[in-house]
């Protein structure tokens, strides 16, 4: 940083939940953060309620931006870069909002579209990662804001796909989770909405081997987990299980309790259950065992872009964003040549899902073929595990392999009995009378065993937590891209 050409610059992002300023000494590839401050104004709240930014929110914003301008002047003579996102995009009176800000502060705000937002977020969230000696080649970034969620995938530092979805923590809170703490009923409705919405996005066709989450909810969740789950202050990863545990806390304590116990700003504590729910649903949808959290995002991305492109930074980004369809095409070529670890992740997910698809039919106990199909699926899953053992963490592999074997064994006992009974039934029709009695005796005995075993089988299958099981299977694969040398 000392040897590079640097400049001090401030960037402000007006989001749906927060207005956030970062001042940094900038070069095109790195930043030295000098000041970082944010305030929850929750502009999105009034936009969700009335379709426009209320006069009160406009005043609060102007007041805060005036303060930020003074702060920026303390470090640099340059005016701060100011970008506004989803809530402002959606607000009917956004031009009036911009004019009011300009008139009061002489600051110019750029309303950026979702695609530029995704690109800036990616640059900001990954620049530290790319300074590591062996950065992973495949990275995905999630920026969970108050009003929207940006998802970006990249291969070898090149953005391969991105999307902006108008779904954020503040929006979900305002729409579904207003009770404090959220009621079970509301949570279920929100959960159903998220599952359906995410399934419709068909995200799984894009690779998400390493997901870096940024934004207020992700960072607040990390802070909550560090305190509530005794994680170290240096920890920047959250596992699926830890997120579920945080959700449990948020579901059982009011925002005020969370705020007091875990030093969260009250406004943030109010919307954190929604943020946790979105992250949880996304991880379940993408079958991710863990995520990494970055404190950097869109503001840092703007600073890097400014350092790289100068005054025309936004025009350059808009041009980059327009070239995205070509890059999406390139992605499908990449997928054809997926690495062993990538194909392992895909196959393990496919086979695990396939196996679990049969669970409800086995529990219904109406068609003996369901047991057969689930058992075969379990064996195919084991075959995939056998094939990818070298790409797995040995301890995790052993654990999941044992679990899959247990499933196969308990299904095997049922299936073997079903086959014996079916064979005997077939012989019964052709057997002489003396043999028929014997066959009937045998079928009855086997049937008695099968009934008992069905109860055992049902209890076993009902105890499987599908989400957790899938996460365990996925988590057993090593992050292939960060590991070098032959296995």
């Amino acid at each position, binding site marked *: 940083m000392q040897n590079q050409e640097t400049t001090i610059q401030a960037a402000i992002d007006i989001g749906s939940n927060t207005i956030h300023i970062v001042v940094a000494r900038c070069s095109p590839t790195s930043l030295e953060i000098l000041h970082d401050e944010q305030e929850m104004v929750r502009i999105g709240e009034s936009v969700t309620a009335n379709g426009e930014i209320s006069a009160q929110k406009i005043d609060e914003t102007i007041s805060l931006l005036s303060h930020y301008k003074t702060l920026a002047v303390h470090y640099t003579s340059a005016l701060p870069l100011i970008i506004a996102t989803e809530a402002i995009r959606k607000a009917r009176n956004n031009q009036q909002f911009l004019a009011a800000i300009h008139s009061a502060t002489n600051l110019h705000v750029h309303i950026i579209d979702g695609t530029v937002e995704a690109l800036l977020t990616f640059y900001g969230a990954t620049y530290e990662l790319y300074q590591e000696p062996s950065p992973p080649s495949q990275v995905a970034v999630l920026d969970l804001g108050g009003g929207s969620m940006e998802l970006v995938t990249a291969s070898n530092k090149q953005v391969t796909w991105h999307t902006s979805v108008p779904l954020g923590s503040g929006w979900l809170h305002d729409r579904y989770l207003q009770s404090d703490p959220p009621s079970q009923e509301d949570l279920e409705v929100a959960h159903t909405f998220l599952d359906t919405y995410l399934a419709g996005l068909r995200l799984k066709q894009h690779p998400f081997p390493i997901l870096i989450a940024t934004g207020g909810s992700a960072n607040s969740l990390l802070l909550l987990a560090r305190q509530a789950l005794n994680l170290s202050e240096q920890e920047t990863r959250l596992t699926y299980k830890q997120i579920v545990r945080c959700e449990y806390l948020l579901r059982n304590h009011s925002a005020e309790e969370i705020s007091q116990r875990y030093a969260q700003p009250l406004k943030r504590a109010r919307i954190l259950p929604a943020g946790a729910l979105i992250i949880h649903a996304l991880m379940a949808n993408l079958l991710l065992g863990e995520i990494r959290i970055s404190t950097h995002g869109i503001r840092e991305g703007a600073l890097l872009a400014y350092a790289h492109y100068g005054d025309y930074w936004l025009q350059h980004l808009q041009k980059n964003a327009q070239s995205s369809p070509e890059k999406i095409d390139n992605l499908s070529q990449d997928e054809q*040549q*997926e*690495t*062993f*670890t*990538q*194909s392992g992740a895909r*196959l393990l997910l496919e086979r695990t899902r396939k196996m679990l698809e049969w669970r409800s039919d086995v529990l219904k106990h109406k068609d003996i073929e369901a047991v057969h199909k689930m058992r075969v699926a379990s*064996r*195919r899953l084991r*075959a*995939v595990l*056998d*094939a990818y*053992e*070298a*790409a797995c963490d040995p301890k995790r592999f052993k654990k999941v392999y044992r679990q899959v074997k247990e499933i196969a064994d308990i299904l095997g*006992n049922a299936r*073997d*009995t079903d*086959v*014996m009974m079916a*064979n005997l039934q077939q*012989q019964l029709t052709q*057997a*002489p009378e*003396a*043999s*028929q*009695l*014997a*066959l009937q*005796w*045998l079928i009855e*005995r*086997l049937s*008695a*065993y099968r009934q*008992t*075993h069905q109860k055992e089988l049902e209890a076993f299958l009902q105890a499987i937590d599908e989400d957790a099981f899938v996460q365990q299977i996925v988590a057993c694969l*090593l992050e*292939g*891209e960060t*590991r*070098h040398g*032959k*296995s």
Partner: protein
Amino acid sequence: MAKAKPIIGLDIHAPTEVNARIIAKTRLAELYIWERYVDDPYYVHKLHNLRIAAKRLRYTLEIFADVLPPTIAPFLKEVAQIQEELGALHDTDVMIALLRLCLGAQDGGSGYEYALAHARKAQKKSDFVINPDIVASLLDPRTVPSTTERRGLESLLLDLHQQRNEHYSTFRQHWYSLQTEDFRNMVLSAIDAEP
């Protein structure tokens, strides 16, 4: 059941296609470990291992069908058929073992105790074909078969032996027809062929 062989020489950063060939060859070699037992119909457990090895090869070829050469397809069918033939043999072996235990147990309390203990002990070593809980259910002294039923079971046992011979014969004939065609080397060539 024999454990799957660990795969040596994989490069987790290489394209899947490269590793898929290594895995398929390992599974093919694993199948031929059990070849020497093909001529002995009473190596029940070894023939069962051959069946499992065939199943592993089949699943491997199916899993990596997208990246392996399409010329593999006819060999995949043969492997699946071998697996099914050995499956029919195994199902009959299970029934025969079950009936033997069942009939043996009727000879007296000590026979019953012995059969049960043997079944449970053997299950731990994974070298027995019957689930011990089924054995326990069948050997329940409260539900012993009547003399007529017992005679019927003896007759069924004879029939099953006959069926087993037929299953074994079908499998062995198929196996040798494949070996005459140099099946192993043909599969190897197909695995190594240009995609």
